[in-house]
């Protein structure tokens, strides 16, 4: 449900930001949202409605969970309730969102909010704030990213940015004596693949990865879904379920191949 709402919002954002280029270009490139599902479990509506509940079926009762891009914590609270005996580390670099996140998860004893971005390396980096075409809509800031927005003819504007502390995930785990992460959930506005590529130690032991997927180049060097899928498959994961808005965005659940094979092959 959250994915549908976010896709709809993004769709409207894109539509506003685009200019109709006219007949000489051949097409008007006005996308119409079409929602689709792919995955082993077919398209029974119960599975779709509860895609976020797939992960618990592959995890122990006390998993270590890392959520990258927690925003204000709506998803984090659900994680806390789903894994009451687990440990959840929620990363959010945006200062305003982090303040809300901290407040929202105050009562969740199993959640540690961390005001960091996850990046290739530890240090500081620019967080490009997205506020719509006219740079006025703060309600769209959850679409901010460490990657600048992808510039096209119809979309040539600059984002404001702030510097945020960031950390490499493997480094952070080592520093904090976390020897394995069972469940990784990533929503990093295009940075998903780079995060995965630079978290080889975490990747080796992770069981379930839920990752935001993109089908459009919204960010400079932002990864598209096929690349993420290929990378994870090379690293011994299988796509379990993918709910997406065609040509736009989605969310995919990947699970370690041995686990997948054990059930489905």
């Amino acid at each position, binding site marked *: 449900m959250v994915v549908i709402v976010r896709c709809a919002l993004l769709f*409207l954002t894109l539509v506003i930001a685009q200019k*109709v280029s006219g007949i000489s270009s051949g097409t008007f490139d006005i996308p*119409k949202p*079409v929602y689709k599902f792919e995955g082993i*479990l077919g398209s029974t509506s119960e599975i779709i409605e509860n895609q976020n509940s797939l992960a618990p079926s592959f995890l122990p009762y006390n998993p270590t969970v890392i959520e990258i891009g927690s925003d204000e914590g709506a998803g984090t609270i659900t994680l806390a309730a789903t894994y009451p005996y687990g440990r959840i580390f929620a990363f959010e670099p945006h200062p305003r969102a982090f303040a809300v996140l901290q407040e929202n998860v105050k009562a969740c004893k199993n959640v540690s909010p961390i005001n960091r971005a996850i990046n290739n390396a530890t240090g500081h980096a620019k967080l490009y704030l997205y506020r719509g075409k006219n740079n006025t809509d703060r309600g769209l800031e959850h679409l901010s990213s460490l990657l600048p927005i992808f510039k096209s003819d119809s979309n040539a504007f600059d984002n404001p940015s702030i510097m945020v502390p960031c950390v490499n995930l493997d480094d952070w785990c080592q520093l904090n004596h976390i020897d394995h992460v069972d469940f990784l959930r990533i929503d990093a506005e295009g940075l998903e693949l780079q995060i995965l590529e630079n978290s080889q130690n975490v990747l080796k032991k992770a069981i379930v990865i839920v990752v935001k997927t993109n089908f459009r180049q919204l960010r400079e060097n932002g990864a598209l879904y096929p690349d993420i899928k290929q990378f994870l498959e090379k690293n011994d994961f299988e796509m379990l379920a993918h709910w997406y808005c065609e040509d736009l965005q989605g969310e995919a659940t990947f699970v370690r191949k041995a686990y997948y094979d054990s059930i489905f092959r």
Partner: protein
Amino acid sequence: MNLNNVLRQFTIALCLLHVNVHCANSWSLEHLASDKKLAASGSYNNPELARKMETVFQHLKNSWCSQEKAKLIMEIIIFERLTMCVEVGTFMGSSALPILVSLEYLKNGHAYLIDAWSNQEAVKGLSPDDQNAIWWSTLDMNAIKNHLLHMLGHWHLDSYCTVIHETSEQAVSHVDSIDFLHLDGNFSKDGAHLDSKLYVPKVRSGGYILLSNVLVTANQEPTKMKALWPLFETCDIVSEIENGNVLLFRKK
């Protein structure tokens, strides 16, 4: 949700692949008629028609008219021989194409394609800060109409249609007894309701009405709900596609 028994769920899902599951939200001509009647029509399972439809589908990829909607339009027009067609809100002609190609296949019939092609008319009734209003107000309507005309020329469909560059209110006097009506005009509550009130009575008994973008919202509320009332009053619902966003009615 707990996957009570993943094995059972997986097996059930596999089994369903082997079972003829009727999907509630899908179009099929079989809903309308028995196999015998379909076979007798001569059009059903016709290879030439299938090729024509495939060509239309290819052209409409990534357009505002989905394959399912195009299929519905073509099958209903051809099978029911709906020769007097009216479309309110033609825009680029994505839905007009399957209408006209169907008439061409029947070698009979005519379609009135009505659109104001006006930014002002498009945003009438919408709040100025509504996302729809912002979008509609920035479009190059001349270019969009020219695109339609170019398409009509390219497909040699000019003789099967009359393009009416007027508001739906102005254009209603041009049409009389309608066999097939496609309503996809103004997105506002009042505009959609007006289109429905003006044109549904013009559809003959046994004629069909296709209402598109049923679930569109403006100012955070669905705007076409009142537009449904004249249809509830005088029609039976035949089919729903695109998760209820497109509804097909038949006039009682």
